[in-house]
């Protein structure tokens, strides 16, 4: 039985639904807070981080999904842009930070962890492909 509709697995379809709901919910939350609580620092912070999230998404779509640049270079550019957006959002929210390093170091660690996870998933893909190639060779 084919569990995929339009080439998307049910699990991924549900993930998309949840993420879409979170995005929609965030917008509704801001509107409700403004109506009932008025515009305050909390709402301001919420809006700023929502805009930052949109910019992260745009950067990902334009840079990471583009195959014109090599992946390490795209990742570096993506990291720089997202870091700049994060610092700008923190400044606008008036967060107190002693130095940029307190943000930069965790940023680098997160990117390294994600890249390493991606690398291991590519290795797993290669292993699966090699199993199929071996099976095809035996047939």
């Amino acid at each position, binding site marked *: 039985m084919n569990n995929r509709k*339009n080439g998307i697995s049910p699990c991924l379809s549900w993930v998309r639904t949840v993420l879409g709901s979170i995005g929609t919910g965030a917008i509704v939350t801001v509107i409700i807070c403004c109506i009932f609580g008025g515009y305050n620092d909390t709402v301001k912070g919420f809006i700023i981080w929502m805009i930052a999230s949109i910019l992260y998404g745009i950067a990902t779509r334009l840079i990471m999904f583009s195959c014109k640049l090599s992946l390490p270079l795209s990742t570096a550019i993506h990291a720089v842009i997202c870091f700049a957006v994060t610092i700008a959002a923190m400044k606008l929210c008036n967060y107190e930070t002693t130095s940029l390093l307190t943000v930069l170091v965790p940023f680098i660690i997160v990117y390294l962890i994600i890249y390493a996870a991606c690398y291991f998933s590519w290795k797993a893909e290669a292993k699966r492909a090699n199993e199929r190639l071996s099976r095809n060779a035996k047939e």
Partner: protein
Amino acid sequence: MKLILEDMELAEPEVIIRGDLSSPEVAGLIARIKAPAAVRRLEVASDGDSCFIDCRDIVFIASAADKVEIYTESESFTSRMRLYEISSRLDRSSFVQISKSTIVNIDFVKSIQAEFSGNYIAFLKNRPEKLIISRRYFKEFKERI
């Protein structure tokens, strides 16, 4: 997949596909039925002389600058055709494009290895070259093997 064959006299063969037409499996099947028949031999040039080679002997095809090179297990040839022209004539079940400038015969791919850059390296049977499978083309390569 259920296969039902009905023997009847018709002016031309009729193919009816029932099911989820948006699924990749059915879309692939429709594409294969619609695809033009692949050629068995390709005209190539070697030392200025024209000849024909059996497509099944082709290991990979690479384009560089303004020429296209065709490699078998023991020889290499050039072709006047462009890569996309050659690609349209080859059997899609055996040949797959793995980068902007390379087409490989899947039957000659021994193994692949993931690179840190997100690309893959393809090791060939009976040829020393290592081909790069671009991450953009890897999905199609994976589906074809």
